[in-house]
């Protein structure tokens, strides 16, 4: 019987010929990621483990992106811990503010996560790298400490759900809408402990940026990770970046799936995930005059160049509604520079938006744009839980960047079609 790509990658890294869903393995890791929130906890565990050295100084990435540039004294102390650990252990992939980007945008861009690899990160959106055909999953800080010290982590081999996307995409529908449609269909725990494998003609025609957006939100359906089989689009992206050799893995034709779900996108409109759940999705046509106070464009979900281009296309020559604040956060410094060169930043600023250096900031209600009581935001991020972006009585509506830009102009949740 055949194996899924997830089974193959785990088997290979556990030194086994074959594994099946439900097996437990202790496997070798290709890269361990940590950020400024989760790493300090991991470092304490690292010490209590009695570890003197990291397993491989080139296979650890430390990205201080959450509360940086430091929001207060405590976060400054945490960022310092990360910096000092990186120096002490000569971690080659430490990214200081100014070179730093949001981890899940930065690592693929830097060629540090590759097809067929087994990646763990002490951040739940590590599943983003499934877009490259890696098995990448979020872990906790203790797991991260053990992985940094030993290069190993334990896994329960997951089942895979296959999602086949077919049909023709309508205008303004993007990767964000495809993943929201999937989450809306199966619910926030619809893929608990499972891999979400995306395939079909729609996926084959999708840009890397849109694929990253899709895989990013697998965790919002409870998924252990996401997976898209590497194709020419993947390999073109990877070939100019890869810092190591890699070997692609794809699911066998006779692999066992837990379930196969077909989604026809022909009738799919841009979607809005209404609070307080990413599964609470409505087509934009059903949203009636919901006034907003803030728009956030960016994050590891939609802070890539394609996202900024789409938003800028809509904002060009227009002004943001007087009652709205728009905050734009590019994923990395490289994206920032590209946006600068293309004149995109100028469009945002001209329209009246605030354009920031990369940071997680407002996405997790950390800093740089929290919501006050009773305020409402449209955001291209991935979570709209109660209090996610600020006060427990504030609300977050998740959309793609086109809707976010249009909403910013009109002061209410809106489609680009409504912008004159």
């Amino acid at each position: 019987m055949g194996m899924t790509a997830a089974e193959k990658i785990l088997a290979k890294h556990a030194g086994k010929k074959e594994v099946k869903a439900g097996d437990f393995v202790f496997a070798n890791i290709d890269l361990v990621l940590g950020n400024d929130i989760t790493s300090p906890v991991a470092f304490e565990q690292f010490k209590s483990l009695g570890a003197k050295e990291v397993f491989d100084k080139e296979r650890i990435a430390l990205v201080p992106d959450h509360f940086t540039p430091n929001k207060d004294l405590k976060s400054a102390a945490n960022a310092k811990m990360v910096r000092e650990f990186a120096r002490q252990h000569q971690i080659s992939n430490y990214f200081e503010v100014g070179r730093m980007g949001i981890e899940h945008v930065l690592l693929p861009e830097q060629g540090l996560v590759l097809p067929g690899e087994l990646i763990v990160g002490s951040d739940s959106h590590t599943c983003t790298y499934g877009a490259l055909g890696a098995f990448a999953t979020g872990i906790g800080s203790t797991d991260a400490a053990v992985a940094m010290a030993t290069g190993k982590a334990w896994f329960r081999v997951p089942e895979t759900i296959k999602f086949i996307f077919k049909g023709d995409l309508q205008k303004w529908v993007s990767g964000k809408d495809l993943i929201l449609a999937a989450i809306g269909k199966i619910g926030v725990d619809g893929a608990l402990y499972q891999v979400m494998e995306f395939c079909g003609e729609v996926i084959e025609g999708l840009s890397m940026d849109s694929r990253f957006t899709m895989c990013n939100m697998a965790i919002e359906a409870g998924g252990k990770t996401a997976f898209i089989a590497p194709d020419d689009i993947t390999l073109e992206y990877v070939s100019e970046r890869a810092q190591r050799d890699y070997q692609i893995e794809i699911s066998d034709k006779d692999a066992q799936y837990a379930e196969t779900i077909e989604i026809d996108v022909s009738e799919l409109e841009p979607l809005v995930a209404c609070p307080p759940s990413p599964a609470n999705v409505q087509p934009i046509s059903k949203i009636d005059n919901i006034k907003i106070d803030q728009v956030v464009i960016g994050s590891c979900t939609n802070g890539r160049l394609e996202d900024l281009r789409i938003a800028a296309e809509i904002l060009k020559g227009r002004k943001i509604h007087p009652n709205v604040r728009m905050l734009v956060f590019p994923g990395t410094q490289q994206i920032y520079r590209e946006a600068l060169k293309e004149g995109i930043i100028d469009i945002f600023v001209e329209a009246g938006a605030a354009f920031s250096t990369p940071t997680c900031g407002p996405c997790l209600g950390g800093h740089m744009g929290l919501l006050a009581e009773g305020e409402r935001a449209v955001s291209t991020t991935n979570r709209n839980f109660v209090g996610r972006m600020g006060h427990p009585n504030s609300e977050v509506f998740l959309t793609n960047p086109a809707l976010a830009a249009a909403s910013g102009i009109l002061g209410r949740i809106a489609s680009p079609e409504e912008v004159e």
Partner: protein
Amino acid sequence: MKIKGIARKFPKDVDTDAIIPARYLNTQDEKELGKHCMEGIRPGFYDEINTGDIIMADTNFGCGSSREHAPIAIKGAGIKCVVAKSFARIFYRNCINIGLPVFECSKAFDESDEGDVISIDLENGVIYNETKNLSFEATPLPEFVRDIINAGGLTKFAKKFIK
């Protein structure tokens, strides 16, 4: 080992932002995090409870971020065990890794009320509701997971692999 405490019930899909809001993530201190435990969904929870209490939750408990601060906050608040219909994956493994016992048991949730006195045998996963005189069996932990717990958590389990 047996534990005994009062049931504190929570609905489905309690996320890690509800367990410990992100604004408190700038500390790793167990006691400090414990004071804000469940602040996002039940403000005042810390003052309401006693050491040894047990959280009983509906499905998908601990969904959202990978923050280990969430189970640490629960432990820091003095909660000794979490019983849920199901857990979010990263939260579940974080609990195991830091040594906070977790059990999946739908019946125990459905048939217990807030405030019931619950005792749990951590070895075999038998959950006993003393108030209602009902006994439930949780899904036993997989052998591999028991090995980690028996070793005293993941850090102790992994020591043998350190150079």
